[in-house]
């Protein structure tokens, strides 16, 4: 194997967060500066490497690294356009979340452990994105479970441990089912690299039953992390984790790993042709539609801000699955772009929810009255995120919904419009009351529960305030500049052109 920069770059991208992570574990608790330097160096290096790869892939370079692992199944890391969509998202949001977490955890115990696992978690996420075949994907998918568990139980309270157990039961169970699916697939077709259009088309007739079962097993395994109903139970529970962890879990790492896996399986393993031949798309679309509506209704019933956001995640992530299962190029653009858009908007919402809790001790929706007067900036960012989720132009969420809707019409699946419209109405129903309370109600007469950072120039710690403002701004910018090639939308178009051979 010749070592050139194109082979090494995928490895370096993973190492750029893995090595700082391991060093952080060895950092003494008191050495906060060293930890921050390690974190920031890792993020910066990673962003530079990702930019390099982005430039390379858009010029048609191939990035592939492989080592022997199992007979007929190497460990392959490959940077292609779809991988980059996910990597770019996770690297940018990792930067934001790291800044946020440094501010959030200031002076709390066990920070070395926290940031160590935090970096491992990002390494695993990037690994999921770069995985070049199903075995490699499985490997990083499981590592992601292991790296996130300590973050979910970080607080170490009985509730956190209970949530952690539930989380593990779901994700390890899902991982095992996924392994079965992958092993079954391997016994039929081996484990070649992901390829646009899939590698199973020629086998679809002969092994129809086995391939259907393997697909079902893999969707169940991936659906656990992607929180498809009825496999979503862990997600609202995992809300006990610290706010930066929730942000990471929901916007970047865990749910996205599941959704990304579904994209890979449908497009690059089975391929659109074989999925259609085996009539697998219709059940998947229905599953996604049910999840979207059911979770929105559940969100409406929640009185806790973070839990409402959690159910909203369940619903929004399924847009990706829905778009994928419609097997039309326009809907596919909507699905792939939503991977990024949902991430930006949801992380904004979680950052803001964390700010409310940290600054004023607000956890419940009833307590949000008058919040806009005390914390206008956070509330503004929250508003951008919420309106984006509803689908108000020009925020990112509008672009996704527009493409999903036109994509559905293109393939004559008109019923999807009903789902989208219903979901948008429900989105509005569960987000607008929050905005109304925040901006138009008077603050509580008795003052806030807590009032940290009162009388200072900024409404809260600058490290807590900056990240949501940046991500809110980004959610608007990616909507406004959607026409440019380096916008998420332009890039999704580029991916879809390759997947559909356009």
């Amino acid at each position, binding site marked *: 194997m010749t070592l050139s920069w194109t082979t090494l770059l995928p490895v370096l991208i993973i190492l750029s967060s893995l090595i700082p992570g391991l060093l952080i574990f060895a950092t003494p608790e008191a050495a906060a500066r060293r930890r921050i330097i390690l974190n920031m160096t890792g993020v910066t290096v990673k962003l530079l490497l990702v930019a390099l790869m982005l430039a390379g892939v858009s010029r048609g370079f191939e990035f592939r690294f492989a*080592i022997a*692992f199992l007979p007929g199944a190497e460990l392959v890391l490959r940077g292609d356009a779809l991988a980059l969509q996910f990597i770019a998202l996770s690297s940018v949001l990792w930067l934001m979340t790291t800044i946020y977490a440094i501010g959030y955890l200031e002076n709390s115990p066990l920070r070395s452990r926290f940031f160590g696992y935090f970096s491992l978690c990002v390494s695993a996420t990037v690994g999921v994105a770069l995985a070049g075949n199903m075995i490699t994907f499985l490997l990083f998918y499981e590592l992601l479970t292991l790296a996130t568990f300590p973050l979910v139980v970080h607080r170490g309270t*009985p509730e956190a441990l209970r949530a952690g157990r539930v989380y593990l039961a779901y994700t390890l*169970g899902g991982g095992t089912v996924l*392994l079965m699916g992958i092993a079954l697939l391997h016994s039929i077709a081996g484990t070649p690299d992901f390829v646009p259009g899939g590698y199973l088309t020629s086998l679809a007739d002969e092994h129809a039953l086995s391939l259907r079962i393997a697909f079902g097993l893999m969707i169940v395994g991936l659906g656990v992390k992607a929180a498809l109903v009825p496999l979503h139970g862990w997600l609202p529970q995992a809300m006990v984790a610290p706010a930066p962890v929730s942000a990471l879990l929901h916007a970047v790492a865990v749910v996205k790993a599941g959704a990304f896996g579904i994209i890979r399986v449908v497009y690059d393993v089975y391929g659109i042709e074989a999925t259609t031949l085996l009539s697998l798309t219709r059940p998947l679309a229905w599953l996604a539609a049910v999840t979207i509506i059911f979770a929105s209704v559940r969100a409406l019933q929640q009185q806790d801000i973070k839990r409402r956001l959690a159910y909203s995640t369940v619903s929004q992530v399924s847009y990706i699955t829905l778009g994928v299962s419609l097997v039309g190029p326009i809907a596919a653009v909507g699905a792939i772009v939503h991977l990024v858009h949902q991430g930006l908007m949801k992380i904004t919402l979680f950052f803001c929810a964390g700010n409310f809790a940290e600054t004023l001790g607000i956890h419940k929706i009833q307590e949000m009255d008058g919040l806009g007067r005390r914390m206008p900036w956070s509330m503004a960012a929250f508003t951008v995120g919420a309106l984006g989720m509803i689908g108000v132009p020009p925020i990112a969420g509008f672009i996704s919904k527009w493409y999903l809707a036109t994509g559905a019409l293109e393939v004559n699946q008109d019923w999807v419009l009903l789902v989208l419209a219903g979901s948008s109405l429900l989105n509005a129903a569960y987000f607008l009351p929050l905005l109304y309370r925040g901006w138009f109600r008077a603050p509580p007469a008795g003052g806030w529960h807590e009032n940290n950072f009162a009388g200072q120039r900024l409404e809260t710690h600058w490290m807590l305030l900056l990240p949501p403002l940046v991500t809110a701004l980004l959610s608007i910018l990616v909507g406004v500049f959607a026409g440019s090639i380096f916008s998420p939308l332009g890039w999704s178009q580029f991916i879809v052109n390759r997947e559909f051979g356009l």
Partner: protein
Amino acid sequence: MNFALLSLAIPLFCGLLLLLSGRALRTRTTGFIVIVSTVASLVAAWFALQEAAAAGADIMLNLGGWETGLAIRLRLSSLSALLLVFTALMHLLIGLYAGLSRDGIKRDYWALSCFLHGSLAALWLSADLFNLYITLELLGLTAVAMVALAGPKAYKPAANYLILSLAASLFYLLGVALLYGRYGELDVLLLAPRTQADVITRLALLLMTTGLMLKAALWPLHLWLPPAHASAPTAVSALLSGLVVKGPLFILWVLWSEVAPPTLAQQIGPVLAIAGMIALTAGGLSAMRSPHIKTLVAYSTVAQLGYALMALGLLLTWQLPQMHIALWLFVIAHGLAKASLFLAAGEMQSSLGTKRVDGLRGATQTVPVAMFAFAVAGGSLIGLPPSGGFLAKWVLLEPILSEPGNWPWAMGVLLGTLVSAAYIFRIVAISFDRAQINPLDINPDRVGHWLALLPALMVWGMALSGEWLIRLLAGGPV
């Protein structure tokens, strides 16, 4: 072959030397000598492995130059060479721990561990049912003596172990005698083409299987194992669970895959495979309920041996010789992982001053390295990629999934994975409890904790050489 003999002779001579020297040497010197000799044995085993791999076929040796049939015949295959390396490596890792960790170990441990090493090496190389009996007996007696090293509280489990071990040997010997009476031959290769599915052979095989299953603690004959392994000193528990139970398993494999006529093997295959599935579940459930850390780890051995038994059973049922790859990958992965688990469990026990699972609250903060070792080794038992346990599970799954008729067996693997995950993460979850942290009893021994981590890292490293291992075990030149 000479290297293999060297790998076998070095520990035996070292053990004899230590016996003769009596009390003349200090414990530290003794430990040093044993570790050096283990390294020498490991190097020899490595060269033997190269030789076997290059030959691509079994190498036979008649000791003393007697002709076949009279001589003690040794057989070096790539599997036995690999097991020689594995045995020496395990002894080295556990010896380093025993020598360098603060708790230390009694002087007698060292001579006994040499004999254990020697008798296992002889077992892997024997190709004769009676020689196998001798090595089995040596192995059992050494193991019992090692359990008793823990002092008076271990005498009862040690005595039980002794009685069961002797009874099991008798069963085995009776079977050997029957076979000798019937065929006048005990050499595995000479016996193999001659065996027939008659009553005497059936009875002999049944007796031998019972004895071996008892010795290997295979379900349902496993009840002696948890108390014996849990009460032994930490280093000994690691050796017993990681290595000793694998000896009888090897004989069982030789017996059924080579000696027994295929028709009989096909009949017993499903029985063994189902026993393996039950072992996985029942052992795992017992581990999940166990209140003590070391008992939990010991029950996990019962459960994990279920994988090996399942692989053996399916090998016989389908007469698929390549299934033995899965079997031996399980053995090696389990050995390394279990060594780490026992060492970590022992270190956590002594640092936290508790034997109970509840006592591990907050262990990620108080004993982070040992807890990490436990979790990493546990990951391999669960079979998370890219660990050795995953490698084995993958190889086992391949033939199961390739034929729709075999799919029900996949349930066994699925169950095994979930149950192992449940008992491993039971410990891991408790260790993250910050509400009521169990404080340290004594300052943790950093060296000991890191040495506990070493085998766990190796089992995860196995994945990198996965393809090489599989080709090696498949036979033929590498």
